């Protein structure tokens, strides 16, 4: 039985407290009028010689009027703290969903190596419920007009936009929320159901619970792949309402799935180092590291497939998505490839390295930072455009949600024995050796 250590609890609370302060600072320091924006722009022009000061490339044909331009930048700057919270919120929530998907896959595939890690996964996915509640509140705030994250939610924008008008059959607020409730509700139901059955299986040793879980997992995976894809259109792709990509759902999935597995590896290494997981050996770590390695490459494959197809055909309606990112987000856009592909590839290709905790932690850190950047680059260009910066609000929001994730996840881990003792595959898993 695991007990949440005092240090970890304090650490999580400090992260959350600093996060809240930073988020509040972000909202407080966002400009409220165009006059403030003008002042900021003038200051920037003085400071960095017009590096970010020149916002003339911020799309839209209507920026010749200075006032229009200022209003445009004002919207971007007001969106900035919202975007910071939104990116961090959806990222951490989807990471816990990735862990849940990995859990479901391992259950449905009757994997013999992973049952010793099931309780870690079950615990970490406890974040899904609070995470999706906060996320849902953010969506409500967006729809209520609290921010301009989704331009299609603004009737004034849609009125003059024939392209969005053509999409209102799908992109309208009531249907959007119905979908969000189905997606989040379905995932959470599965998580709660599995946790209950798993604890009952532990108590009674009755294998009918195992069969129920197996069936639920198979059903969930079918539900998941459809809803995940649609959710990524709704919550991420619809921010760039004029753009579309057919493999986007897969791409988003690969991104949070690999981060989810990295999170499992991190938590396992942490619990192991505290002496709580006696049956986890280097072979289990090795397997997790193989998944991290393979899925990093899978993510890169999808990233490149999406980028290269649109770059190659160079159709204006598609390619503006990437042109804007390359021009305005050059360093994170390509730096992310180094973090998400090159470093994990070189660090984790060696079999012996995959068994060393510090190598796995190093590669995992690259993956987590890289995929946060990935989500940032998916969302931020559509909401804050060229006025982006990864500063206090962004880091604080990430700290808050990571703190909450650690607190909720590890509290849930401490509520059940760390070894699912009556799982029919647990013996095999205990002696797993690669």
């Amino acid at each position, binding site marked *: 039985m695991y007990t949440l250590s005092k240090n970890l609890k304090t650490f999580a609370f400090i992260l959350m407290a600093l996060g809240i302060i930073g988020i509040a600072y972000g909202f407080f320091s966002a400009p409220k009028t165009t006059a403030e924006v003008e002042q900021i722009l003038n200051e920037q022009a003085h400071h960095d010689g017009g590096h970010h000061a020149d916002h003339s490339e911020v799309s839209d044909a209507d920026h010749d009027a200075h006032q229009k331009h200022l209003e445009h930048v004002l919207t971007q700057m007001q969106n900035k703290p919202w975007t910071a919270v939104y990116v961090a919120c959806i990222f951490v929530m989807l990471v816990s969903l990735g862990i849940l998907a990995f859990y479901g896959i391992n259950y449905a595939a009757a994997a013999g190596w992973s049952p010793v890690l099931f309780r870690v996964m079950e615990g970490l996915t406890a974040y899904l419920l609070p995470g999706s509640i906060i996320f849902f509140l953010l969506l409500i705030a967006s729809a209520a007009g609290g921010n301009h994250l989704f331009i299609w939610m603004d009737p004034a924008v849609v009125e003059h936009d024939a392209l969005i008008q053509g999409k209102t059959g799908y992109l309208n607020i009531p249907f959007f929320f119905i979908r969000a409730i189905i997606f989040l509700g379905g995932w959470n139901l599965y998580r709660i159901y599995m946790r209950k059955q798993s604890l009952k299986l532990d108590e009674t040793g009755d294998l009918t619970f195992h069969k129920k879980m197996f069936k639920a997992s198979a059903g969930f995976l079918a539900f998941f792949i459809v809803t995940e894809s649609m959710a990524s259109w709704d919550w991420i792709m619809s921010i760039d309402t004029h753009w579309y990509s057919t493999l986007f759902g897969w791409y988003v999935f690969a991104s949070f799935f690999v981060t989810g597995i990295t999170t499992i590896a991190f938590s396992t290494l942490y619990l192991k180092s505290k002496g709580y997981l006696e049956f986890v050996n280097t072979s289990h770590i090795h397997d997790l590291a193989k998944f991290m390695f393979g899925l990093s490459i899978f993510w890169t494959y999808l990233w*490149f497939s999406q980028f*290269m197809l649109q770059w*190659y055909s*160079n159709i204006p309606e598609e390619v503006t998505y990437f042109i804007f990112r390359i021009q305005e987000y050059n360093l994170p856009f390509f730096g992310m490839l180094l973090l998400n592909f090159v470093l994990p590839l070189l660090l984790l*290709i060696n*079999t012996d390295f995959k068994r060393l905790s510090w190598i796995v932690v190093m590669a995992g850190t690259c993956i987590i930072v890289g995929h946060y950047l990935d989500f940032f680059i998916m969302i931020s260009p559509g909401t804050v455009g060229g006025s982006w910066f990864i500063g206090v609000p962004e880091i604080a929001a990430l700290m808050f949600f990571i703190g909450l994730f650690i607190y909720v996840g590890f509290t849930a881990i401490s509520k059940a024995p760390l070894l699912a003792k009556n799982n029919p595959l647990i013996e095999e898993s205990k002696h797993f050796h690669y």
Partner: protein
Amino acid sequence: MSNKFIHAIYNDDDVLLDAVKETRSAHHHIEEIYTPFPVHGLDKAMGLKPTRLAICAFLYGLVGLAFGTSMMYFIMIVDWPQDIGGKPSFSFIQNMPAFVPIMFEMTVLFSAHLMVLTFFFRSKLWPFKSAENPDVRTTDDHFLMEVALKGDEDTAIEFFKGTGAVEVKVIEK
């Protein structure tokens, strides 16, 4: 140094694995083991060094990557930088996404094929090579351990019978 060898034949891989451990702890030198299929853990029991084939494959992959990159660079950028459908051929990096599939496939091609050739070369396998099989049954259902004869012949035979061998022969090479 005598040129006599003992051929101990087993009909079960578990017995073989135990026999290998006993033989090693009795300090007999195992020359070779013939098995009809891969026996998991046999290389560890025999104390064989791990293969370096994967390292070779990685290096061959690098060679393939370098080959693909330099080939595309020379042909498409240096030698004849034509405008083909508006693709920018002013520098390598500008047109790189179009070369990535080739660079990738070259890496895999070199890595896979050169590694296979290395494997054939190192394990001395080629067409028309005469088989080095000491006993035809080892390709079907028997396991044969060849050990250099050390000391007295009869005690050695006795020892290998004791390890569970179904048949022990002394041969001279």
